[in-house]
């Protein structure tokens, strides 16, 4: 060890200047839960099962078509989906359970869904006192589309008319 100890002095100076800085510009800490950070748009929180609201009747119309793509995509087999065929020959889901305690929030199911029906939101404070209450069903997972598009402005479903117009234009071109 050198008697001058100049390297140690430099280290001490760095730490002291950092300490003085915390009094001038505040510390780096965010005092949770009183202060919270703003989450980015793509944050992978809990799953959302989106539903439209029918403008005429006001009832909830889930977007899910029970195609089982999310069930096949999940690495942990977390989603349970049972379905029936309705009068208009369209399938709809009668049971959609997600075990949020087993889920690893990877987002592969969201990527697999073609119908913009399954998305991930910003909620992460899901702790409970017993495990079975972490299995959420259709009612708890349901989420209105307007709310989702308000918080995720870059992830909107393109409107149907535009898709049809593109299809017509493609057929005319070929």
């Amino acid at each position, binding site marked *: *060890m050198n008697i001058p100890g100049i390297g140690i002095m430099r280290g001490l100076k760095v730490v*002291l200047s*950092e300490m003085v800085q915390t009094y001038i510009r505040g510390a780096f800490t965010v005092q949770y839960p009183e202060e919270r950070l703003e989450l980015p748009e793509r944050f992978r929180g809990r799953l959302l099962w989106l539903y439209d609201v029918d403008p005429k009747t006001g009832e909830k119309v889930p977007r899910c078509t029970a195609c089982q793509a999310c069930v096949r995509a999940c690495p942990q087999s977390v989603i349970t989906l049972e379905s029936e065929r309705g009068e208009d020959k369209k399938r709809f889901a009668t049971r959609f359970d997600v075990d949020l305690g087993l889920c690893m929030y990877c987002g592969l199911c969201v990527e697999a869904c073609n119908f913009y029906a399954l998305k991930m939101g910003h909620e992460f404070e899901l702790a409970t006192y017993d495990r079975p209450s972490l299995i959420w069903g259709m009612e708890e997972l349901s989420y209105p589309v307007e709310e989702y598009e308000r918080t995720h402005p870059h992830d909107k479903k393109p409107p149907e008319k535009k898709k049809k117009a593109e299809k017509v234009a493609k057929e005319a071109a070929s």
Partner: protein
Amino acid sequence: MDVNAIVDFILNPFVNLSYWFSEDILLAFMPAEWFWLVGLIMNFAVFVVIFAYMMVNTLYMTLAERKVIGRMQDRYGPNRVGPFGLFHPFTDMIKMLIKEDIVPAGADYWVHLLAAVLVVFPGLMAMAVIPFGKGMQGMDLDIGVLYILALSGLTTISLLMSGWGSRNKYAMLSGFRTAAQMIAYEVPLVLAAIPAIMLSGSMALNVVVEDQAWGTHHPVWWFFSFVMRLAAFVVFFISGVATAKRSPFDIPEADSEIVAGFFIEYSGLKFGMFFLSEYFGLMAISTLATVLFLGGWQGPFVDTIPVLSVFYFFLKVYALFFIFMWFRGTLPRLRIDQLMAFSWKRLLPLALALIFLTGVGMVVLQGLGWA
């Protein structure tokens, strides 16, 4: 009510309070043949005051350390319990008191227990001779410095006992390291205190403090004494950091290698005793360094307003505390052989050289008549 009397009282409250208590209360109501008891009661009262101060000081120093180190690390320290975390030490104390007292199965029970009991006393006993202000000293010993330095040797025994009595290889390793470190660093500590004693001509701490005032000696002598004391202060402080087992010399409790070292098997109140002893040791080193080298309670206007002496004293002591915390927050720790090499090969020759220089300088200056 005489305004002058009140102002006089307030200018030196502690000394006047003790006079009022001993003369106006005890001596007035005590029968004549029991006057000897008054001295005993006054000593006991001083002990209670010092003990209470040390306890409260330790409690709040733990909080201050955590907050200061927190600020150095760009975060707040504890700030949830009470405003700015000011009630936090009480929750710490309650937690420590209600924990279960676990003694390992094969451990030597009495050694384990007595180590925890004995470790607290040296630091507390050292505070008896420190002058906290002008005319405020627990006991005026002629050999004050020797007394304190002798006490610092007592801690080594209790640490070895705790390392041995815990029946744990980590604790034993740490006990051996502690013994080696304490022995190695007590020598420069004692030797660095010698220039201050030589310059003041006495080991009584009150005399040492009063000798550092501006007017007592020739100005050349004062500057020479200032430079010598500062150099000796550096050596004393580094040895003091090692004696107090603080970073960068905290091998005994290297908690990232041997997980709390010699107090690994202690819980609850016994752990609290070790914790207290660490802060008592810090206090002893800081106050001794202030008294011997930094001028104790000296400062501007101390003659006219004696209560300022207390203020200056504690300012200097807490500045030294801040430097301890600063070191702890910044520096990695030395390895045991590097620690030993540093003490025996660097600090010891330096301390001896300082004694030599001080002696030569004193003789030269006294010969020139500039004493």
